């Protein structure tokens, strides 16, 4: 009997094979949506079911949330790109054959990310994550403009180096686990490693965590390993930007956190907290300043993703039940909000025919509804109530101040600087006298509204089940 956790991986991979063969982009798009819906259904099935610990697969309180988000955002993104890609073909940026390829790649990517999420084996997780990365590399280069190729190439190099380092880290984890769990599979299995964490070799564990931090941190987009991120977001198709910010960063961070759990399980090992705090703060503040000089709207929000990843890593670096809880909550909220923002940005780019911020003005006059949604989404990511990000930032800042009053000033400073920049851009784009063209928007606005509603709901009421999961994961994270 086939189980849901197999479905979330198998459906996309199978679909990828089929979609390569499907001619006609409309059919492909529809199929893409249907398949993603099916995957989402499987994901929900997992949520409904109880946790699983198999040889290769694990579904526990920690990753179930991310599986759910992954499949959901995969579905909404498919929905969005179905209406979006058509416009890309009309404008001639993509040929139908490329769209076919795009759909196949999209499913393959989703499959790989789900694989990385449910894998109970650090090797398999590594494979899934790297597969997803390489596929996104190809997607980023999809438009084959010089900029796109340049971005893809940079992404490729940095990601490959990251891949190698992460792999070395994985080997080290194996070596660290070997004394406790013996040779072979057990020393690469999450559940067993987690259980045996206390008996693992601390020194190798430290070494391993460093390599994993650099390796997976590159995909998380931590400064100074972030260089690929802004360009990849800016040059790739908008749905891919949404998936990158919304999912891939999360999955990479998820992997990193799994390893942090191991380190937390071994008291003799060095505490990764300070390192994470520092890297988080560097990313947060650096990205906040970078926001001011951005001219391309997608690159702007790419940097804001770096900013928020920095905040999340900072929270986990602080540790403790409240901060970890806040970090997890912020991960979830950020991926929903940011992908929603990228959907909105896609609409804007269609409406104004450009991504250059300077040429986007007065949206509230020309496209009132879009402007409202966009404004709400941006304010949400800035941590304004009544959206979920406010709750997580509330927890992060209050607990930090309660424990380290002076340290708390730094993330606050970064967030304020970033807020100033985003607000400036927001006002510039939606207010003022409109300039330039104002086309009708083809893409469907359902996904972004849906995301916004979810974030709103989370800001007002968090389901107890979710809270329970987060709390359990938070205490594992130490």
């Amino acid at each position, binding site marked *: 009997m086939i189980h849901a956790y197999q479905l979330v991986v198998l459906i996309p991979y199978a679909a990828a094979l089929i979609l390569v063969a499907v001619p006609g982009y409309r059919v492909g798009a529809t199929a893409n949506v249907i398949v993603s819906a099916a995957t989402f259904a499987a994901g929900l099935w997992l949520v409904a079911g109880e946790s699983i610990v198999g040889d290769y697969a694990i579904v526990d309180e920690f990753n179930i949330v991310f599986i759910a988000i992954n499949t959901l955002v995969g579905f909404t993104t498919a929905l969005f790109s179905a209406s979006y890609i058509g416009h890309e073909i009309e404008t001639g940026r993509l040929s139908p054959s490329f769209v076919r390829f795009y759909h196949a790649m999209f499913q393959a990517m989703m499959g790989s990310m789900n694989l990385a999420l449910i894998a109970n084996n650090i090797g398999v997780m590594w494979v899934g994550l790297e597969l997803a990365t390489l596929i996104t590399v190809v997607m980023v280069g999809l438009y084959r403009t010089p*900029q796109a190729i340049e971005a893809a190439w940079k992404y490729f190099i940095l990601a490959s180096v990251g891949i190698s*380092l992460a792999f070395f880290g994985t080997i080290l984890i194996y070596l660290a686990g070997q004394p406790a769990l013996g040779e072979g599979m057990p020393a690469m299995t999450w559940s067993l490693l987690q259980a045996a964490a206390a008996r693992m070799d601390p020194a190798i564990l430290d070494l391993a965590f460093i390599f994993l931090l650099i390796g997976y941190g590159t995909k998380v987009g931590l400064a100074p390993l972030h260089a690929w991120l802004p360009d990849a977001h800016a040059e790739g198709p908008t749905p891919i930007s949404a998936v990158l910010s919304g999912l891939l960063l999360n999955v990479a961070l998820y992997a990193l956190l799994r390893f942090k759990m191991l380190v937390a399980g071994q008291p003799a090992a060095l505490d990764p907290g300070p390192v994470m705090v520092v890297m988080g703060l560097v990313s947060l503040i650096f990205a906040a300043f970078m926001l001011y000089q951005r001219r391309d709207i997608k690159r702007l929000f790419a940097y804001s993703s770096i900013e928020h990843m920095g905040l999340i890593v900072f929270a986990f670096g602080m540790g403790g039940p409240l901060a970890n809880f806040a970090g997890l909550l912020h991960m979830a909220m950020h991926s929903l909000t940011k992908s929603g923002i990228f959907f909105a940005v896609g609409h804007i780019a269609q409406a104004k025919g450009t991504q250059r911020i300077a040429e986007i003005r007065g949206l509230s006059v020309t496209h009132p509804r879009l402007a409202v949604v966009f404004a709400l989404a941006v304010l949400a990511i800035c941590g304004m109530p009544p959206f979920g990000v406010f709750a997580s930032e509330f927890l992060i800042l209050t607990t930090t101040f309660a424990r380290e009053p002076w340290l708390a000033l730094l993330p606050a400073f970064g967030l304020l600087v970033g807020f100033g920049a985003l607000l400036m851009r927001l006002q510039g784009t939606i207010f003022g006298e409109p300039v330039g063209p104002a086309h009708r928007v083809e893409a469907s606005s359902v996904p972004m509204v849906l995301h916004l509603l979810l974030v709103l709901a989370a800001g007002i009421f968090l389901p107890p089940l979710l809270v329970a999961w987060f709390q359990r994961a938070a205490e594992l994270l130490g």
Partner: protein
Amino acid sequence: MSQAYEISHLLAGVMLVTSFALLYQERVAAVLNAFAAQSITLALAVAWSAWSDNRPDLFITALIALTLKGIVIPVALHRTVARLGIHREVEKVVGVGVALMVGLALTGLAQALVLKVAAGMASHAREELALALAIILLGFLMMIVRRNAVTQVVGFMSMENGLILAATGARGMPLVVEVSVAFSVLISLFVFAVFVFRIRERFDTVDLEALDRMRGDRR
């Protein structure tokens, strides 16, 4: 056993030496030869551990290392270099002397790190881990002290050699073969890219204007 360990240790040592050779070489052709030598040594090392710990599947890894990285890619790159006309001296960021010094420092760092590892793990495994770590770091160094694409690809590949060495060194580690296959695919992509997109200086251009054009993000 001890003699088995002697040989694998020797081979690993040779690989480290070739890494230094890579850093030392001035001309692209020579770099490629040095790399080929390293890959062949790797193949030998892997084959040896395959035989000594009788894990026949590792022979595949050895074979890939030998054919792809020992022969195919070096040859291919030789021809690319010839076609791109960059077989003359490569532009270096720092002098050979400095590069070697840094390399030595990195090797020392690798040793220091591994020496902290508890005696819980077999001493030869630790030794090999130290060497592999050193090779990886040297490969990374190679990537950042050379300016043209080919040598950087080479640097990456020697990094990856170190990885394979570490993976085979980790006794009984599953999936090594699969991973080595995956890596060779990755590398082929690299080389493919260098071929197709004619990436000469994209790797490291000093022409910021060009980058602006590329990035479409005016300063």
